[in-house]
């Protein structure tokens, strides 16, 4: 029998606000335990939450970018459960009236486009962290408690592990474009759980689903879901039943494993948070937020193709990251030729950045410097070959091309007489090759060019070298 997978995702994205969701504590990662806390996020008796407006704006921004309907009167709700990392004994979340409803994200896979519908996007606070360091006790770090967390829930529209991973890639790209989440899956600022079931192809109803957790990279999302889909198909083919449960992805062993069954599931006793008034998002505020939304990857790619005459592949690669696209446009604005800039970025710059694992925004070499280098090439001050060496130096030190060229004596030799002398030396020293060339072996021209370049340490102007060689050889 042919089976079809049905997958829905539940994504948690930590928002890039300066302060926490309901108090003024900073959200910086990696501080000493319990140093980024106050009476409010520790849940002392008598404290009250105050909404961080910036967090609301980030969620609404995301909702607008994902075609959601924005709820005019949204409410917070309490989700009640006991756990040591949850200081109040409840998490402030949203239940009946989330900030955003509906919406979709379009993905493209193997040339096919597909809309994945969203159920809702809501805002909640993160919990702290339990630390087990051996011994018969645990410690609690509340630095993360109260950090704003956006939850995005999709409809069960996803049909394969690849689609799920592609959805996450697209979503991450958009969240990073909007500047609302850094998208770091390893550190957990972007987390993804999946509801997975399978059914005979063509069947309308859903099968029994499992919830898969702990997939902290795109690769693991793909592998874990692949595994889980096959596991379920295997069971059903043998006539066995799927148990509704939560399963954890074990990356080391490459399997999903049962964590808890539905019988142990909580009754969270949601009810409206009485300490907070409903959030009203009126037209004025909505327009303000809408105005803050930057051009998104798809639109920007289209524009790059039209405006800069770039091939689609170049445009796609350059618009994957907002910082990359900004870098490109800045270089073009400063006078760089679009395709040349694109080539340098996708060739030299990305190669070096990837090698060192550096983000483009942290690159020492800036758009203005690349443009400076390109202008040296255009003006025949240096050769294209030398330019690569110069660029490496710029990348390492962040210095200007012109300074490096002067300091290292890399100025191109454009003195025809000097080059002529060298060309003659080369021809005199290689009589056999000269003979073969004259006998018709035209490709030996490259050999002579190479010899000249070697003798000039690559500084000879290649156009002049070519001209002189042709002239002398045909004489």
């Amino acid at each position, binding site marked *: 029998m042919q089976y079809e997978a049905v997958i829905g995702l539940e994504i948690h994205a930590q928002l890039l606000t300066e302060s926490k969701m309901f108090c003024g504590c900073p959200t910086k990662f990696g501080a000493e335990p319990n140093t980024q806390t106050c*009476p409010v996020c*520790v*849940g*002392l*008796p*008598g*404290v*009250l*939450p*105050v*909404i961080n407006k910036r967090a609301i704006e980030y969620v609404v921004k995301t909702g607008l970018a994902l075609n959601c309907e924005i709820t005019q009167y949204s409410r917070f709700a*309490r989700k*009640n459960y*006991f756990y*040591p990392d949850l*200081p*109040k*004994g*409840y998490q402030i979340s949203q239940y009946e009236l989330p900030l955003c409803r509906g919406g979709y994200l379009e993905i493209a896979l193997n040339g096919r486009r597909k809309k994945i519908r969203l159920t809702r996007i809501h805002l909640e606070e993160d919990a702290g962290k339990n630390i087990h360091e051996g011994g018969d006790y645990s410690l*609690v770090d509340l630095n993360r408690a109260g950090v704003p967390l956006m939850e995005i829930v999709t409809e069960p529209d996803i049909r394969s592990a690849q689609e799920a991973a592609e959805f996450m890639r697209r979503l991450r790209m958009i969240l990073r474009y909007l500047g609302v989440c850094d998208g770091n899956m390893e550190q957990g600022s972007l987390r993804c759980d999946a509801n997975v079931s399978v059914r005979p192809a063509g069947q309308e109803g859903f099968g029994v689903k499992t919830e898969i957790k702990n997939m902290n990279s795109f690769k693991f999302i793909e592998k874990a879901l692949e595994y889980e889909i096959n596991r379920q198909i295997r069971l059903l083919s043998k006539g066995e039943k799927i148990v509704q449960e939560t399963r954890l992805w074990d990356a080391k062993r490459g399997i999903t494993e049962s964590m808890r069954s539905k019988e142990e599931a909580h*009754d969270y*006793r*949601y*009810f409206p948070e*009485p*300490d*907070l*008034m409903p959030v009203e998002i009126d037209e004025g505020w909505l327009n303000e937020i809408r105005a803050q939304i930057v051009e998104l990857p798809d639109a920007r790619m289209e524009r790059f193709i039209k405006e800069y005459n770039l091939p689609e592949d170049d445009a796609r690669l350059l618009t994957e990251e907002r910082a990359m696209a900004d870098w490109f446009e800045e270089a073009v604005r400063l006078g760089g030729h679009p395709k040349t800039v694109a080539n340098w970025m996708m060739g030299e710059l990305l190669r070096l950045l990837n090698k060192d694992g550096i983000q483009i925004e942290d690159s020492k070499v800036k758009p203005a410097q690349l443009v400076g280098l390109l202008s040296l090439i255009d003006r025949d001050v240096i050769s294209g070959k030398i330019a690569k060496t110069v660029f490496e130096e710029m990348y390492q030190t962040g210095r200007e091309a012109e300074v490096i060229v002067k300091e290292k004596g890399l100025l191109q030799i454009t003195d025809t007489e000097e080059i002529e002398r060298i060309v003659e030396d080369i021809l005199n020293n290689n009589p056999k090759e000269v003979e073969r060339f004259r006998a018709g072996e035209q490709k030996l021209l490259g050999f002579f060019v190479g010899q000249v370049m070697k003798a000039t340490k690559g500084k000879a102007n290649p156009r002049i070298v070519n001209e002189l060689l042709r002239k002398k050889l045909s004489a």
Partner: protein
Amino acid sequence: MELYRLGIREAIELISKKEISPLELLESVFQRIDSVEERIKAYVTIERESAFNRARGLENKPMEGKLHGIPVAVKDNICTRGVRTTCSSRILENFIPPYESTVTSRLTVQGYILAGKTNLDEFAMGSSTENSAFFITRNPWDTERVPGGSSGGSAAAVAADECIAALGSDTGGSIRQPAAFCGIVGLKPTYGRVSRYGLVAFASSLDQIGPLTKCVEDAAILLNIIGGHDHHDSTSVAMSVPDFTSALGMDIKGLKIGIPREYFIEGVDKEVENGVRDAIKRLESLGAVPLEISLPHTEYAVATYYILATSEASSNLARYDGVKYGLRMDGENLIEMYMNTRHHGFGAEVKRRIILGTYALSSGYYEAYYRKAQQVRTLIRQDFENAFKEVDVIITPTTPTPAFRIGEKTRDPLQMYLSDIFTIPVNLAGVPAISIPCGFSGEGLPIGLQIIGRHFDEENILKVAYAYEQDTEWHKRRPVL
């Protein structure tokens, strides 16, 4: 006259004229505490040393604040930095807050002196202070009787002159009912008028802090200070606070007072009813116009309240888990630690309400209980809104009976809950109300008159209360101790 007998206005007047000093006033109050506290037991913590230090610090300072050197008692569910705040519960018996509530910060700015923290029913759950985990506070008029609750400690401290004024909190009548039982003034402001930041939550959508005082003017003075928006409390309303004392003394001619028929029913003590009816006649003689009105959903108020208040409480009290502060009992594992801590930390009434509230919010019951109760709450609020289209204030008895005997109702929680039958609808509607003395029973027990106003119209209820008070002598009577 003994200085401890003074109210805020009188004491401030004497201090500003330099006829008395803050230290003299404080010495008098503490002499009074020394002589009567053993019989009354109003205080959980007496702040003798810090109070005297503060009084000495104010001694020769120019008078800057409106409470310069005034000793005030604060209910022990309002957080005071560095001063133990117990909620009269074992679970917070040794809890010392590292931060100050907004109301006490505002009192501090005005130069008040914290006399001590007063007893209450554990986590403000009760109507007699018999639910305190530590001891029962006595009614100064008859020490065999309860002072009411949950702000029984604050009410008794004011009535016994163990302070000049006090703060309490009112969720279903916890300021007004003990004020009525102890023969003093108790004001529950409009929900949102006073910041709740630092008030240990019982039922967040109902809790409100307010003054317990010896006269109406003192209540207005304190409300002037504690009222107003606070950026720490999103439910506090960004509305300017009028000077409530300026409404006092204005005449009440032509003012319409509503008499809801649902509040004059069987079960109301005859002496209480007569006291209230006499008060209405007195107000009529001052020019007010009484009108019979109806608040048709009154009979559902107590049931509605006990679903909503317990639901919120079950969540608000989840933080007392032994992990971060307060009592922790050991256990073999996490769940046992939770259970042992909460088993030993909470008293019977608190547990009863946590269980009730947990049940009402549980999946499968939420619609029938919590949501239904919210709908009824809306109807009750509309009752008041409709009534206030016809009248300016509403007058009722504060309680169906005068103070009852210690132990009289402890065995039957339902009987106890019914003692708040006339105060609960006010919290559900969120409107303000004041209780003032309006007579005494044959046994010499005070009777309370409740005056209810429109949302954010504390001015009218203070105006009516003051007019009545100035025309009567009840507030001048003091218990013999």
